[in-house]
């Protein structure tokens, strides 16, 4: 019974981490049709921002939830102004340019911080469930993912900016027709997307050993989750993260972590084969 609970928590955690990993990419992809292959590096920089801030004496939660998103958001803003905005509408080119950026950032961070592993410890203690000990931080990650989904949903549903964003998602020329400069919208979107990536990186910082190449571990998963989710932002992210998280955890528990990872990938292939437009391209059409 205790074990069942532990497994449940681990599954929720796996789903939540996929949501966090995918969110920044999903926002940028969903609204701008830009696949940001430097997404993993944005997360990595979020981690570094957190650790640096904590080492400077900032409270860890402030560092994670405020400093990291802001720093990475600003980096994203610079990237958008310098590179991305020249490439709108050219999907493949943006992928290539952002891939170049990812290498660039790895190099840059290596030169600044060196290539040794860094990290901070978890701010939340573990606790016991019957005979088992669980990582208390798992709950924080799960909560963060839920808050993030609700937040995105609320912004899109209730605010004016959200309305414009939804319009832009449906048709990129619509917002322009409504009198909003698409340039501004894209800038704001990329900032938000980058900030979300930074946030995700920050949330994972206490769980991992951070190196400049850490981003590589995230990008493939983020990419797969977002594409398999399909066009709807929230529903897509939730459904594909749900499928992949649960599948991979089942196989991890039953067999081994390798098989868990491979199962995730195989599930992605099968899913896309059956639903070439992603889950929400097939179901939940037109929802958020």
């Amino acid at each position, binding site marked *: 019974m205790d074990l069942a609970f532990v497994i449940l928590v681990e599954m929720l955690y796996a789903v939540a981490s996929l949501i966090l990993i995918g969110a920044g990419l999903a926002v940028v992809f969903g609204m701008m*049709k830009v*696949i940001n292959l430097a997404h993993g590096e944005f997360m990595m920089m979020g981690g570094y921002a957190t650790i640096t801030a904590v080492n400077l004496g900032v409270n860890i939660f402030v560092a994670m939830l405020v400093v990291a998103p802001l720093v990475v958001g600003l980096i994203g803003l610079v990237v958008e102004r310098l*590179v991305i905005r*020249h*490439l709108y*509408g*050219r*999907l*493949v*080119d943006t992928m*290539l*340019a952002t*891939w*170049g*950026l*990812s*290498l*660039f*950032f*790895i*190099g*840059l961070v*290596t*030169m600044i911080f060196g290539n040794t592993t860094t990290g901070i410890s978890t701010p939340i203690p573990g606790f016991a469930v019957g005979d088992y000990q669980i990582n208390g931080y798992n709950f924080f990650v799960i909560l963060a993912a839920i808050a993030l989904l609700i937040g995105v949903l609320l912004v899109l549903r209730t605010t004016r900016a959200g309305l414009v964003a939804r319009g832009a998602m449906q048709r*990129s020329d619509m917002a322009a027709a409504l009198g909003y400069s698409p340039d501004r919208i894209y800038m704001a979107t990329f900032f938000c997307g980058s900030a979300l990536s930074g946030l995700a990186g920050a949330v994972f910082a206490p769980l991992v050993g951070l190196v400049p190449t850490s981003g*590589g571990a995230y990008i*493939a998963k983020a*990419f*797969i989750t977002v*594409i*398999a989710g399909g066009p709807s932002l929230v529903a897509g992210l939730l459904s594909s993260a749900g499928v992949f998280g649960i599948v991979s955890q089942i196989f991890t528990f039953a067999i081994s972590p*390798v098989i868990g*990872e*491979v199962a995730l*990938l*195989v599930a*992605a*292939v099968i899913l*896309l*084969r059956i639903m*070439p*437009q*992603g889950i929400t391209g097939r179901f939940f059409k037109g929802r958020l």
Partner: protein
Amino acid sequence: MPGRFVKDVWVTVLVTAVLIWIMPLLIGTYTLTVLVIYGMLGLSLGLIWGFGGILCFGQTAFFGLGAYTYAIAAINIGESTLPMILAILVPAVFAALLGAMMFYGRLTDVYLGVITLVVTLILFKFMNSTAGPQYVIGKARMGGFNGIPGFPTLNVPGDPDTYIWGDPYFYVCAVLLALVFLLVSALLRSSFGRVAVGIRENETRASLMGYDVRARKTVLFAIGAAIAGLAGALFANWAEIVTPSLFSLGQSAEIIIWCIVGGLGTRLGPIVGAAGLAYLKFLLGQQAVVDNTLITGLILVLFVLFLPKGIVPALVGLWKASFGRRPLGRIHQARRMRGGERANG
């Protein structure tokens, strides 16, 4: 148009001969060999992406499969002729199956990219997890992360004791690249190649003309994989070790960069891009002032921003500005933009 092809053959033979003579005077043949091999790998993606419109994020999967197939077969068979053939066939068959799955499922664009990427990742993870003694094919241990070293290298066909290595191996690779280049040229001049370009331009129209787009794309995909497989086998012979890093994302992305920098929709572009960038990487390894990853990334960003068509088309464009007509079926900015719009739908 047989006349033009004959001209192609002469030009290729001549240029190859001159290069084989001059290049070893400038760069060591050992490094040249791998540049030639990368050129072939670049060409394989250039063919399917530049002329077939199939953006494969996992071309390196076929490269790696070719290399592994060769290594495993060579250990078991003890000579190199049959393993070389297998190293071409296995990736081709694998690509045909994968391609059939994707193209008959009407997957396009980004989705195609994701599937090829994911398949490459699966292979990478699988190869990495084969360190245990239970992963054996015949006499060959898969070796996991450390890969497979110490397999018999290329020998003169029919004479397993006479190895081809060093300078002769460079000549073998260079001649093979020239041959592959000619085969690709012939293919593109053939009806099959022209239809492939037509499919790249407009799939719906091609099918409304009565062409089976799915089958043709699958075949083209398999041809590309066969070339990548051959390059993989040559690489295995050159490095004398195969490791899972052949399947890595970095390797995969590098091939894409070669094509972009060299120029898509040309036969020469990907070869030039591959050889040029690989040599650059080799040169960068001899300095330690700036981080090399940073430079590679910067090059890519700058190319996409300022020379998105690549070096070769830019040069050809200059040339054409003063002479002659446009060449057949160049991929164009407009084409990539349409790719972006389609992803919207």
